[in-house]
């Protein structure tokens, strides 16, 4: 059986069980399950979209993640107000399109899949371009804020998240991507469940008042276990790589979550957007992935190799 089929079965069963549970709660026991119901409907759209893109192959996967990055950056730009600056916002859009293109094409004159050299170099050109905008306008007031927002928006949401798409160029593309897509939300669920059951000590009350050390520890435990459970999809991973992958997923997913929370709290908003029913915006959904994907990518590339 192919890796993707195993994930398809897992996804199908999880959705079926979750749907059934919510249905029993909602219609059988007449409990208030509105929130869970909306979140479930969100998943019902997201999971087929993602798996469909991966099933279609490398090009579809890369373009799909490129569109997700564009949508995520749009939310970031709108929420921070950067969007009013069409020059910088437009330039970052071009940068994200560029990241997607160099992920798709081969280096000139070579047969490698994906232009890795340019993928790593592109941030230089995008940042240089962002710094150019105030100079073109001959303006100073408030420009540092716009420059900084543009750079964070591109580097974090365009480029760091872009690593997830670049994983599609690897030998074990579907396995690695699906591992991340499944394990990161599972860590979120673990943090939530452990927090509900044992949560006493608040972890970062100013950033995310509902998160507890107990929940975080639970997420780390589950995160460490996940690479072993999904070992079938992590080709070439030995003990060292599995432990590292566990740490990256277990710690990284929580840090990703908290980083977007810092941004939201500073702005003073609850969700980054409203595109996905029951989940808020795209960025609220991919917050952990953005953080985890590049760390996982470089760990894998260093110890296992991509191609």
């Amino acid at each position: 059986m192919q890796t993707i089929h195993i994930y398809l079965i897992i996804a199908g069963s999880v959705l079926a069980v979750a749907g059934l549970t919510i249905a029993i709660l909602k219609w059988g026991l007449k409990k208030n399950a509105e929130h869970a119901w909306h979140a479930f409907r969100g998943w019902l759209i997201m999971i087929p979209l993602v798996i469909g893109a991966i099933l279609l192959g490398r090009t579809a996967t890369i373009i799909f993640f490129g569109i997700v990055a564009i949508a995520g950056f749009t939310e970031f730009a709108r929420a921070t107000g950067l969007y009013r600056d069409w020059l910088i916002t437009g330039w970052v859009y071009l940068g994200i399109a560029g990241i997607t293109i160099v992920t798709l094409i081969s280096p000139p004159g070579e047969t490698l899949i994906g232009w890795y050299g340019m993928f790593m170099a592109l941030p230089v050109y995008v940042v240089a371009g962002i710094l150019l905008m105030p100079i073109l306008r001959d303006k100073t007031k408030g420009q540092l804020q716009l420059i900084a927002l543009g750079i964070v928006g591109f580097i974090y949401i365009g480029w760091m998240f872009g690593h997830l798409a670049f994983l599609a160029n690897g030998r074990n593309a579907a396995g690695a991507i699906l591992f991340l897509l499944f394990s990161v939300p599972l860590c979120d669920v673990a943090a939530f469940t452990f927090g509900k059951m044992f949560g006493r000590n608040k972890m970062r009350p100013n950033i995310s008042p509902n998160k507890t050390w107990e929940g975080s520890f639970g997420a780390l435990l589950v995160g460490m276990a996940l690479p072993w459970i999904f070992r079938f999809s992590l080709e070439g991973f030995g003990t060292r790589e599995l432990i590292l992958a566990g740490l990256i997923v277990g710690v990284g997913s929580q840090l990703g979550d908290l980083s977007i929370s810092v941004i939201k709290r500073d702005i003073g908003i609850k969700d980054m957007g409203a595109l996905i029913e029951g989940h808020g915006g795209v960025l609220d959904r991919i917050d952990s992935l953005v953080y985890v994907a590049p760390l996982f990518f470089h760990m894998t590339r260093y110890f296992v190799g991509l191609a």
Partner: protein
Amino acid sequence: MDEWDYQPTADFDKTPLEKLSTFPRQPDMFVYGVRYVLHLFVRVWMRIYHRFRIVGREHLPLDRPFALIANHASHLDAITLLSALPLAQIQRAYPAAAKDYFFTTMPTIAFSAIVMNAMPFDRKENPRDSLALCRELLETPGHVLIIFPEGTRSPNGELGAFKPGIGFLTAGSNIAVVPCFLDGAFRAWPKGAFIPRPRKLTLRIGEPMTFAELAPDKEGARMVAGRLRDAVVSLERESLRGIES
């Protein structure tokens, strides 16, 4: 150090459909881009398929906000009036469209908001609020509001009575109203026809009018509607006689 001043756009927490159906809509790069490209095609299509001709374009007071009004005989009217404006203007030109008709289902909302850049006019529940919104638009530099004072498409192509709404907006103010007569739209796309026919379209643009001397009340509004209708009728006569401006 001063704190950074974030100003989220007004629609950042709305779903795409909510973004399109609220008004004023926040500027959106993708929507602007799509609209721009579509209107380029529409203009080419109008020139070729309908041999669209504009008489009196120099009357458009492009240096200030104004209302563009015309007879209403087909679904071609709004897009034709938009095509008479400079292409750069379409992002800030809004045909007032019945909310209960054009802003109900997802495809009509997407079409009305993205392609037509329509302003949802709530003629049923909140006409007052909608009028206030129109007034706000007409006081903001660079904006054009497109209104069909008959309120609905003419069933037979004949000019109907003008509703006083446009009068409430402009009586006693310096807001310019530009009367137009669109000839050929009824023949090109009458009510009930599935697609437009390749009939000739001619838009005759009259001189801008203001109604500062009229009282901003019911009576004044009715007089504005009457004078505007007279202006459109005389443009129609010019059109019949084939007078070049």
